[in-house]
C-alpha cells in the first residue's frame, strides 16, 4: 500500500491550513470508498489525505420547502429517511442502488459528486432538480449551480483548497415527478448508463422537463435539446420515439470493461424514455 499521511482536522479552517501546507499531492477525503482504492491501485497519487469526517456541521439535513444536505451526509442516512424519500424521491432511488450496504454506511453524497465520475449516481437526480452546491475555501464561500460543477471525467470546477459543504435542492413543484434509473451488470456495479427525469405537468401537458443521462459522456449530461422537445407536449408514444432518437444522437458513450458504445447508446434512449414515462406517472399521483 502506498504510504500517505492522514490528517483529521476539527474545522474547515484547520483543513485549509493543512492543505495549503502540503508539499506533495494532497486531497480531502470523505468516506474514502473511492479515493482509498484508487490510491491502492496507483490510479491516483496521494502523499497526504485530509479527512473531513471530524469537521462539525457538514452532515446536517434541513427540510423547509427546499432541502439542504450537508456534503458529509451518508448514503446510509439518506436511504433510511422517509422525509428525504418524500422530498427527493429520485435522489433516494439513486442512493438505494448505489454500491452496497457496507459502502453506503460510510460513503457520502458530497464525495460521490466531488469524485467527478461521469457515472456518479447522485449527479443525474441532483442535476435534474437543478441543485446548487456551496463550495468553501480559504478565499471564501461560493454557490455553484450543479450544471456548472462537472468539467470532465474526474474533474470538477473546485480548486484544490475548496471543500463542498452543502447541497441545496429546490422544492419540487406540485404536479411534478422525479425519477432515477440505473442499469448495471450486477447489483453493486458502477452504472453502465443512468438517467434522471423531472417533469412538471400542467394538466396533460408537460410544462417543464429536465433530463440528465450519465456514464455516456465526459460529464453527466443534461439533455437540453431533448427537454425542449418534451416541454409543451403531452407525453405519448410518438413523442417518446422522437425523444429516443434524439437521445441517441446526443450522447457520446465509450466502450469499456462494463459495456459497449453501441449498447450504451441504445440504453440511453431506453432509460430516458422510461424515466419520462415514470416521472409523468409520478407527477399525476402528487
Amino acid at each position, binding site marked *: 500500500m502506498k*504510504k*500517505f499521511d492522514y490528517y483529521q482536522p476539527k474545522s474547515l479552517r484547520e483543513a485549509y491550513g493543512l492543505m495549503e501546507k502540503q508539499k506533495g499531492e494532497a486531497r480531502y477525503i470523505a468516506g474514502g*470508498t473511492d479515493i482509498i482504492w484508487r490510491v491502492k491501485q496507483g490510479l491516483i497519487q496521494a502523499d497526504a489525505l485530509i*479527512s473531513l469526517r471530524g469537521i462539525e456541521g457538514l452532515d446536517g439535513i434541513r427540510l423547509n420547502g427546499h432541502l439542504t444536505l450537508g456534503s458529509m451526509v451518508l448514503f446510509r442516512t439518506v436511504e433510511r429517511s422517509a422525509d428525504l424519500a418524500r422530498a427527493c424521491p429520485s435522489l433516494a432511488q439513486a442512493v438505494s442502488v448505489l454500491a452496497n450496504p457496507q459502502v453506503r454506511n*460510510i460513503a457520502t453524497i458530497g464525495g460521490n459528486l466531488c469524485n467527478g465520475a461521469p457515472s456518479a449516481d447522485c449527479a443525474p437526480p441532483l442535476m435534474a432538480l437543478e441543485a446548487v452546491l456551496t463550495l468553501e475555501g480559504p478565499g471564501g464561500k461560493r454557490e455553484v449551480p450543479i450544471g456548472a460543477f462537472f468539467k470532465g471525467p474526474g474533474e470538477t470546477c473546485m480548486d484544490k483548497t475548496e471543500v463542498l459543504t452543502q447541497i441545496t435542492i429546490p422544492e419540487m413543484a406540485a404536479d411534478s415527478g422525479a425519477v432515477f434509473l440505473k442499469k448495471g451488470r450486477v447489483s453493486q456495479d458502477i452504472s453502465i448508463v443512468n438517467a434522471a427525469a423531472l417533469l412538471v405537468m400542467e394538466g396533460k401537458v408537460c410544462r417543464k422537463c429536465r433530463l440528465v443521462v450519465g456514464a455516456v459522456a465526459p460529464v453527466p449530461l443534461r439533455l437540453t435539446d431533448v427537454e425542449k422537445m418534451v416541454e409543451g407536449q403531452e407525453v405519448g408514444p410518438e413523442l417518446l420515439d422522437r425523444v429516443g432518437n434524439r437521445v441517441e444522437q446526443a450522447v457520446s458513450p465509450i466502450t469499456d470493461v462494463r459495456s459497449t458504445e453501441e449498447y450504451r447508446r441504445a440504453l440511453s434512449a431506453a432509460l430516458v424514455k422510461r424515466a419520462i414515462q415514470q416521472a409523468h406517472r409520478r407527477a399525476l399521483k402528487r
Partner: protein
Amino acid sequence: MRPGDEGGKHMKRVIEFILNGNGVSAEVASHKMLLEVLRDTFEMTGTKEGCGQGECGACTVMIDGVSINACLYPAFEVEGKSVTTVEGLVGEGGKLHPIQEAFVEKGGIQCGFCSPGMILSAKALLDENPAPNEDEIKRGISGNLCRCTGYVQIVDSIKEAATRLSGQDPA
C-alpha cells in the same frame, strides 16, 4: 496536530479503541487500513482480505454497530470507536452466536472464506430488521460475494438465524 503527526512518510500514532468489548491500543502508521491492523496487530484473522476494494465484503466488520469494509477504513478513524469482528460473536466457552449456529445448521458455509463477512452483514441486517423477507435478506448481503454456495443456503441460514433470534429473550 498530535504528537507523532510530524508529517513526511513516517506519520504514526497510537490509536485506542474497543475491540470485541475490550479496550485496546496500538501504534499504527497513517496509511494503514483497519483490516491490516485487525489481522496483523491484533491477530483477528477471522476478517479476510478478498478484493481490497470494498466489493467482496470478506473484510466486513461492525463499527459502532454499523457494517463497513475494513479494507477501505483508515485505521486512524477507529479512535474511540467500538469494533466487532466475527471473533466477537462467539460467547463464553466458545459458544457460537445464533447466527453462526444457523449458518452451520443450514449449510451456509463451504470453504468459509466469505463467512465471517457474510455473518456480520447478516447481523447488521437482523439487528435493524429482525424479520426480513427474502428480498430484504438479499439486499442485506448484496455487498458480500460467495464463490461456493450460490447463496441459496446463505439466505436459508439467515432466515433460520432470524427465527432463532426471535425466539430468544431480548438482550
